[in-house]
């Protein structure tokens, strides 16, 4: 597999197009609502993880606070819709922009922090957001918000009779996140990110450009995650601070990329395709007892995979590359 970069990129694009085609046709054969639900969640997590991967994987700034942006997306849409009747489409964009701005504002102080200090700062900021929303009466405090049903249309982004539109939106979001990643991989930013990740000292000598590229990664990453949050709020029609902004969610977003392969184009997709159906199935088949068996299975798998395949599952597909240089 001695393929040059340009050829590999072309091949990736073709594979993506084929996969998207197959996925788009899937609902013709899969009518079971339970399975459709799992597919929607899988696509959503693939999109979220791909977005997380831009900042944490490619750029190496490990964030465990991305639930903040997800929550902002979910809350902006729901609050604008329930309080002011603003269509979710605008709320979605608004949430994305707010999240991107917050990510950049946080970037100023945060990007000076290294390693664990950065990781903990991201956890802490998301936790502050969570606590504030839990105490914010106007936003429903700890009880959360129930999104009222106002119809069944693309205009209002609510669908009562079928889940298919949600499926196609999730697929589109997944494609968007993938395509943005694909596109950035070969951009100026992409190269700077690799420099930041592989050799922070050398990157430091590039100073401003590195800082700007980190800011770019944070903004793009937060924007896409917030769109995912807006989608989630409309899909479930109910949100509360713990479920959209809790630490668990930050991890759920990171896990597919970790299992699939951090800082790789296909890692998040592959990780989500395996992890999310597995999570849902273990939850419904053995988790029902409420006795935590699903947690045991799930946790054990995380430990084993992260120890056995530090580069993620994608490394299984590219043995030749793993033997050569790091990239």
């Amino acid at each position, binding site marked *: 597999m001695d393929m040059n970069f340009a050829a590999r990129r072309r091949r990736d694009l073709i594979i993506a197009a084929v996969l998207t085609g197959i996925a788009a046709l899937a609902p013709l054969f899969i009518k079971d609502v339970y399975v459709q639900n799992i597919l929607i969640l899988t696509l959503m997590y693939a999109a979220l993880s791909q977005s997380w991967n831009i900042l944490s994987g490619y750029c190496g700034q*490990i964030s465990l606070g991305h639930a903040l942006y997800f929550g902002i997306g979910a809350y902006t849409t729901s609050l604008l819709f329930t309080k002011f009747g603003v269509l979710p489409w605008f709320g979605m964009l608004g949430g994305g922009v707010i999240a991107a701005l917050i990510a950049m504002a946080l970037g100023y102080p945060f990007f000076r*922090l290294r390693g664990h*200090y950065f990781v903990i700062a991201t956890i*802490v900021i998301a936790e502050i957001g969570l606590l504030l929303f839990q105490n914010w009466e106007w936003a429903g405090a700890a009880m959360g918000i129930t999104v009222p049903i106002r119809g069944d249309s693309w205009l209002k982004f609510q669908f009562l009779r079928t889940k298919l539109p949600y499926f196609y939106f999730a697929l589109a979001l997944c494609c968007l996140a993938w395509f943005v990643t694909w596109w950035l991989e070969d951009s100026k930013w992409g190269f700077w990110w690799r420099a930041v990740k592989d050799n922070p000292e050398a990157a430091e000598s590039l100073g401003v450009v590195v800082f700007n590229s980190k800011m770019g990664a944070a903004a793009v990453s937060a924007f896409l995650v917030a769109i995912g949050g807006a989608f989630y709020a409309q899909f479930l029609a109910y949100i509360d601070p713990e479920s959209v902004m809790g630490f668990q969610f930050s991890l759920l977003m990171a896990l597919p990329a970790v299992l699939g392969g951090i800082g790789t184009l296909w890692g998040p997709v592959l990780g989500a395709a395996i992890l999310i159906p597995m999570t849902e199935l273990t939850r419904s088949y053995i988790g029902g007892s409420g006795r*935590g068996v699903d947690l045991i*299975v799930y*946790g054990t798998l*995380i*430990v084993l995979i*992260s120890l056995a395949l530090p580069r993620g599952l994608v490394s299984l597909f590219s043995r030749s590359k793993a033997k050569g240089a790091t990239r």
Partner: protein
Amino acid sequence: MGLLYGLIAVGLALIFGLMDVVNFAHGEFLMIAMYASFFLFAFFAIDPLLSAPLVAAALFVFGAVVYLLIVRFAMRAKANAGMVQIFSTFGLAIVMRGLAQFFFTPDYRSIPQSWLGGKTISVGGIFLPEPQLIGALVSILAFAGLYFFIHRTDFGRALEATREDPGAVALVGIDKNRVFALGWGLGAALVGLAGAIMAVFFYIYPDVGASFALIAYVTVALGGFGSVFGAFAGGIIVGLVEAITALVLPPSLKSVGIYAVYLLVVFVRPRGLFGSM
């Protein structure tokens, strides 16, 4: 309370200072210790104050085993080393929570009557709850003991040396894995001690660790990773900040003050108060 935070954090700081690994299952270590102390009380009527050394010893073994079974391999990872550490210890945390739910059910438990429970003591007109006071005392003793241990014994010197240069240490015949395993044991034993004391005045349930773990990370980072003294000082600061915030803000927001102080400190000093690296 601050001293107890310090005690929880010191174990974390020790492990971090030793080998640059953050144990994301630290909160679950605490949870296990609280359960251990609860069951020793429930079945054998051993007061938590007496069982604390037992619990600490058990956690010592547990910590060393975790190192040998998981962390040792996580440290070998060449690619994405940081991620492997975070997610392998985090996976462990999930497993431990699941096991606790499985064996102990998600019910809240508490130790109804201990020697100390609910009593207060009056010092110069100020009433102090006894368990917290004893907790503070034990924390100070444990901290002094640890300080002595690190700076005055052969093992402590081996720890320090292994931290500075694992390669050179191997040449003098010190087994890196043994030193690290003991370090993990020691770190876990300190959490065990904290857990046993805290079992007296906190509800015990499978997720209890999570709420303290974040505060422990903040405490350590506040003091500066790698500094055991910093972790202890960080604990005291966190305790004070929490008490002050509780006066100003509603109780449900009391942690916000801690987090805000953390952010302020790292923005001014990105390596924490006493961080040396």
